[in-house]
């Protein structure tokens, strides 16, 4: 999706992603309660429809890829599977947000044999609840995955439950032409970063584009600051509820952020990420910390002007090698109707052929399998793949690394509260900690 070319396009993008079903990383909910109820019926219905007996030549796939582009890519991938194995794939596509909202009911009802999902806590949660199938045997046949990807596919019990397909890193994006014009250099420490931002302010730019109307983009800022200040392990433990939010380590994250806030675009709570990305596209902002999908807001002829760097180091003993790079992929139902075909399909999804089809047809993502033919990547994609390849640890993003109920009902309002009033860090962290204790009970 590039910059709006017509009035109709402009209007269409004002429809909130929750309703349009365009949200890449949506959280809790999208449609109103009734919509969700309808969706429940829809999902249940899909499961029933696909249950045309355990035919050996069929397998069903529940998909949240409801946007035209990814939906099209998935059809091509399943066609490839059909050709190579002779097994028919019945794809049941459900609106992206509806799918997520109803995943509980879906998995407890009659889910499809294989379904689209995300790595991280979100995957481990359902594995631990016994709602997903163990596919360690499939992993025995997969090649081309780094240990980081295998770790991201492993449940708490050490078995694999997930096949990674695509991912996208989070980094600080900027326009080469703007930087050349002003002679900016990529900063490698926080001091250089703030100095650069100060210079941008003097040059009449908004240093850091920022939006948090939908609640999730600010999580990216929190994640990267926490990863840089306290390191990967502390971040993961904090997300798992094992560390106290009232600790000095967390307060330092908020303190640092409070120092950076004046360099961010003001009034972020009324702005969507698309609007913030457009300020970067229009050369009004100097940088923007976001996922690779920020490129969707740029025209085709501007793609080459887009570049990025990983968020600079804050503590030399921690370095700048960890980052957020959420992985999307596939899981198997706990009791698939066609277990053999489901495994075959997952093996295909994890293989080189599927990765090649993905790569050729969807320029907005990176493929997880390193065996894929990456010659088709743009310069930006190549650089992004290198960045993730050189990362020592990969986090999945806050709402995928912690309990979804905690992320959406506690963290989103808390981060918005912080953005509104960055002074009361003690009150904020103790409020989060109190709620965390109540949620992380079991």
């Amino acid at each position, binding site marked *: 999706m590039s910059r709006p070319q017509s009035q109709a396009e402009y209007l269409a993008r004002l429809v909130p992603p929750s309703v349009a079903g365009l949200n890449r990383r949506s959280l809790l909910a999208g449609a109103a309660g009734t919509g969700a109820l309808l969706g429940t019926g829809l999902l249940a219905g899909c499961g029933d429809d696909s249950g045309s007996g355990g035919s050996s030549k069929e397998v069903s796939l529940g998909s949240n890829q409801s946007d035209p582009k990814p939906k099209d890519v998935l059809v091509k991938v399943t066609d490839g599977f059909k050709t190579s194995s002779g097994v028919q794939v019945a794809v049941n596509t459900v609106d992206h947000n509806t799918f997520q909202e109803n995943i509980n009911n879906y998995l407890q009802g009659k889910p499809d044999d294989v379904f689209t999902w995300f790595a991280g806590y979100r995957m481990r949660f359902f594995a631990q609840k016994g709602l997903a199938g163990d596919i360690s045997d499939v992993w025995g046949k997969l090649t081309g995955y780094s240990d980081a990807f295998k770790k991201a596919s492993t449940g708490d019990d050490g078995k694999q439950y997930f096949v990674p397909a695509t991912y996208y890193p989070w980094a600080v994006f900027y326009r080469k032409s703007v930087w050349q014009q002003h002679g900016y250099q990529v900063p490698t420490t926080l001091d250089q970063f703030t100095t650069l931002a100060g210079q941008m302010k003097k040059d009449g730019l908004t240093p850091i584009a920022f939006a948090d109307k*939908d609640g999730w983009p600010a999580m990216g800022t929190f994640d990267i600051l926490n990863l840089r200040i306290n390191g990967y392990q502390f971040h993961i433990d904090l997300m798992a509820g094992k560390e106290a939010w009232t600790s000095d380590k967390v307060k330092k994250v908020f303190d640092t952020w409070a120092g950076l806030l004046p360099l961010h675009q003001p009034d972020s709570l009324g702005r969507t990420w698309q609007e913030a990305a457009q300020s970067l596209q229009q050369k009004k902002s100097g940088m923007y910390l976001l996922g690779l999908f920020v490129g969707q807001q740029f025209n085709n002829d501007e793609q080459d002007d887009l570049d990025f760097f990983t968020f600079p180091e804050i503590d030399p003993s921690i370095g700048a090698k960890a980052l957020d790079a959420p992985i999307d992929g596939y899981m198997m139902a706990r009791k698939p109707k066609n277990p053999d075909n489901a495994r075959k399909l997952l093996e295909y999804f994890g293989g080189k052929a599927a990765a090649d089809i993905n790569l050729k047809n969807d320029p907005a993502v990176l493929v997880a399998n390193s065996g894929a033919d990456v010659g088709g990547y743009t310069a930006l994609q190549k650089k992004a793949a290198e960045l993730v390849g050189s990362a020592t640890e990969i986090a999945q993003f806050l709402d995928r690394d912690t309990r979804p109920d905690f992320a959406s009902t506690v963290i989103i309002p808390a981060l918005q509260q912080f953005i*509104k009033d960055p002074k009361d860090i003690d009150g904020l962290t103790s409020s989060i900690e109190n709620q965390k204790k109540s*949620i992380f009970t079991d």
Partner: protein
Amino acid sequence: MSDLPLIQADRAVPPPAATTSTGGRRRRLRLLSRTDRVVITLMVLVPLLIVTGFVWMPAAATVLLSGTNWDGIGPLNEIEFVGARNYSDVVNIYPPFVPAIQHNLLWLAALFVVATPFGMFLAVLLDKELRGSRFYQTALYLPVVLSLALIGFVWQLLYSRDQGLINAVFNSSIDWYGDSNVNIWAVMVASGWRHVGYIMLLYLAGLKGVDPSLREAASVDGASESRTFFRVVFPVLRPINIIVLVVTVIESLRAFDLVWVVNKGRNGLELISALVTQNVVGEASRIGFGSALATIMLVVSLVFITIYLATVMRENRE
């Protein structure tokens, strides 16, 4: 004054009915065939089942679930009861709760004090048969046919900070939907925009039904316009007033869609209904906690329902 014709009608009816009632009732009893009885039984049973199954059972289940920490996964017999913990959490450690209650009340007050009287005022004006009153009527009523969700999008075009019409025209940079001091009012304007049209139409219908002779009598007695309205017309509109009251209360409790479309009921737009949805609908739902919020909302609604029922019953008794 308005009751007068009704009472007369009532008095006029009973005498003829009394002479035939005894005989009639006996004949009707005999005429009640088996089919009739089956039909009557079904007519009682089916609605009873529907009301029990779709209204009372879910309400009771919500109250029950509010005492648990269920996350929506696993068999029902594994649900763990945690007593009143959800309620104490709601009140003590859940920051959006207090603003949500305040916003709900604020919403009710704004609709009741501003939007409803304004709708009435417009209805009175339009009732004067001004030139082009059809046009105004349509223009004012138009928002009512739109869903509140759609109204959210429409106003987004005006309110967007960077790309909205208001900021573009006045060259300002007010964050209408994002600034928590402003957004509740911005959203209420959008909500009131629709509510005014709704109320106007209800009142217009009522005003059209007022017996012209009442007004004539009032003007013969030398009453002024406003005096006629407040002393003669307004009291006659009593049934409409009650409907308007109920509609206003319902609308203020239903405000959900608009805030959900704007920012999912966060950052200054908290409403109880939005909090319920945030907690209940989702991947790893806090069904117990959300049910506690829903129960609180049920209690709030019950207050208004009780007032309404009491009013209606008193009406019937009179």
